[in-house]
């Protein structure tokens, strides 16, 4: 330790910033912990729905005694529990926390944020039970019945506005790349959600415009809500943990604006072959391929930032998850761009390949980065360390192996399925039967993921309820031996 080191927080500019950060952490603590608890609750519930749906897809007789457990309802309940329950709650927690920290602006009315968060989760509970009860709409990604959606939209406004307010009262001249992504996404999501609700559910537009709106919405939830939030988290955590700057400001700018310009068009590639004016589909295809630009740019920016520090990445629970997610972002996006090409899409459309792709994006990319965000954020909020490195390890390997099995199984199986569907010689029922081994592999992957999620939840609640006892622990929880731990400053 250097001689001049002084832990009076007011003695140096950098320490003053840290004292400020502590104040900001305190301002968002209650709401963020509530959002993480809700997110983990939805993650576990969504996992149960996912397992049910996965097993039903190869063994249709499984748990078929109750109407609310039929495949159609359980699948949609899974989608909404994960997209709006797990993903959006964890975005509210991690995204708002990063935003407040980078703006160096404490959340002013934390009570309103907490109450709005409670209403978001009430609305979602009503919605998911509505789906299970048979009230779901027929529109994919918008299945939540209309009696729950206005509450969701309203409470979102009261949650998202705090990120915007933090930005308004930010300190410092430079706006960091994470702030761009979070600020933009806080506007993009309500725009998408409200336009889709109005044009499809409340005042339905005519004919194919509905399906255009539907896929514009569904794909943009991934690209303009999950993706920017996950990228913002990666952009914050990689330099934060490693203590070195992000490689290039110029690449950040190029990556942000190319995503903002192109992504919004991409969703229409879901309608290739449909009765949509062909120019609209072609524009969607071109935009999907253009997504190669932000993906390569972000990939290079992240890669160059961690270059030479792979050991630290591997040791840090946060970065191991974040880097897994960042690599997945490059992979899933390049696969996605090629899937938008007509020749490839003719094979992958209407097969399990697409399902594998969706999980590749939402899980291997988004969710893994957000796990990393939780592993970094929670010790700061609770002022204690993660109780068990073993459980974090179990979480990482459960998730990493599980999602790898799932993506490989569904994409290989889906490709074979697509080739067989194009071959008129093969009877349809035979094709369906040929998918069964791959679907069973997916159920196996579900067991790995469930194990990982249980380890995560266990570690989290252990930390939450035993925070006082864990407080005295010195040094961060890392993936290294005790004796080595002291040499590592993190």
């Amino acid at each position, binding site marked *: *330790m250097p001689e001049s*080191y*002084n*832990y*009076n*927080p*007011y003695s140096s500019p950098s*320490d003053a*910033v*840290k004292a400020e*950060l*502590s104040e900001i952490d305190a301002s968002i603590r209650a709401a963020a912990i509530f959002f993480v608890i809700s997110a983990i609750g939805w993650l576990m519930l969504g996992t149960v729905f996912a397992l049910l749906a996965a097993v039903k897809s190869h063994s249709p007789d499984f748990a078929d005694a109750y109407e609310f457990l039929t495949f159609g309802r359980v699948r949609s309940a899974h989608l909404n529990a994960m997209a709006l329950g797990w993903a959006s709650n964890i975005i509210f927690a991690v995204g708002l926390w990063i935003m407040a920290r980078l703006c160096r602006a404490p959340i002013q009315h934390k009570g309103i944020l907490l109450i709005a968060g409670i209403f978001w989760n009430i609305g979602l509970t009503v919605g998911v039970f509505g789906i299970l009860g048979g009230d779901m709409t027929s529109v994919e990604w918008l299945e939540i019945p209309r009696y729950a959606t206005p509450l969701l939209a309203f409470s979102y406004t009261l949650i998202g506005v705090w990120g915007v307010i933090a930005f308004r009262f930010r300190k410092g001249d*430079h706006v*960091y*790349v994470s702030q761009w992504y979070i600020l933009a996404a806080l506007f993009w999501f309500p725009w998408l959600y409200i336009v889709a609700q109005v044009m499809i559910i409340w005042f339905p537009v005519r004919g194919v415009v509905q399906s255009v709106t539907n896929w514009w919405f569904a794909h943009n939830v991934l690209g303009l809500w999950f993706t920017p939030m996950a990228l913002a988290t990666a*952009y*914050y955590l*990689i*330099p*934060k*943990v*490693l*203590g070195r*700057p*992000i*490689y*290039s*400001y*110029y*690449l*950040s700018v*190029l990556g942000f604006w190319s995503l903002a310009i192109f992504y919004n068009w991409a969703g229409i590639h879901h309608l290739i072959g449909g*009765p*949509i*004016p*062909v*120019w609209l*589909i*072609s*524009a969607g*295809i*071109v935009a999907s*391929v*253009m997504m*190669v630009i932000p993906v*390569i*740019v972000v990939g*290079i920016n992240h890669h*160059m930032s961690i270059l030479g520090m792979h050991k630290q990445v591997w040791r840090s629970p946060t970065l191991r998850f974040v880097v897994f997610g960042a690599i997945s972002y490059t992979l899933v996006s390049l696969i996605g761009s090629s899937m938008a090409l*007509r020749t490839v899409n003719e094979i992958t459309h209407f097969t399990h390949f697409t399902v594998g792709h969706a999980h590749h994006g939402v899980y291997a990319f988004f969710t893994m980065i957000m796990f990393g965000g939780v592993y970094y954020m929670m*010790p*700061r909020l609770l*002022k204690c360390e993660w109780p068990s490195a073993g459980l974090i390890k179990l979480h990482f390997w459960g998730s990493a192996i599980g999602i790898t099995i799932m993506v490989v199984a569904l994409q290989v199986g889906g490709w074979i399925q697509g080739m067989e569907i194009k071959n008129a010689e093969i009877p349809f029922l035979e094709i369906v039967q040929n998918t069964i081994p791959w679907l069973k592999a997916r159920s196996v992957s579900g067991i790995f993921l469930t194990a990982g999620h249980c380890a995560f939840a266990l570690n989290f609640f252990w930390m939450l309820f035993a925070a006082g006892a864990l*407080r*005295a622990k*010195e*040094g*961060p929880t890392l993936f290294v031996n005790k004796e080595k731990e002291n040499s590592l*400053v*993190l």
Partner: protein
Amino acid sequence: MISKSDDTNNSSSESLGSMERAVMQDEQVQDVHAQLMREKEEPVEGFSPVPIVLMFFFAALCFWGGVYLVEHSGGYRWDAYSPDFDPTADAPKPVEISLFDRGAKIYRNQCAQCHQASGNGVAGVYPPLVASSWVTGHPEVVARILINGLNGPMIVNGKSYNGNMPAFGPGGLGLKEKDIAGVITYIRQEWGNAAPEMSEQMIAEYSSKYNSRSTPWSSNELKQDLGPIPEAVPTDDNTLDAEETAEL
């Protein structure tokens, strides 16, 4: 680890109040702060330039996007659904109006002032076209009149006329060949006239023969040096009719 002895921060804590000093020295608070102090600085960005190769690659990608849109956008039509739709191949052909209808229109605009809509002309000046052998006879005669004009007296159906017929060929009012063919077809087939039509092909031949002539014809000249009457070329309609009849 952070040393927790009081000596190290004595000097700086002099500026703080005693309460704050007491807080800062509290062991538990120090523990909590240790985590915060361990944190690295807030992230910043470096300013490494974008690799130039990347810019060329992205430019190529944008170029491909433009070409793809041009090739597969179906002319931005709302009713084009196939990616291979070629907006130029399927463009609606201009409606083909028959020579007779074309001629009727020209006649109303250019001829009816003198020869009248009824085709009966004006006594003594403008000869009638109805049942006139000048009109329904040898096609070359009427073509000569239209292309080069006609001056001086002429006898039609036993009555004498003396007027000025202007030239409608390139040396005169400059009607298109198609229009001349149309108007001749019209006057040869309207009002009970029943002569064969004047095809475009025929008028093209007469034009090449007479376009260079600069003076109008006189009625005497008209019937001299006539070529053979060309055989009527069967039109598409005729062949269709023939086929239909054959099938019947």
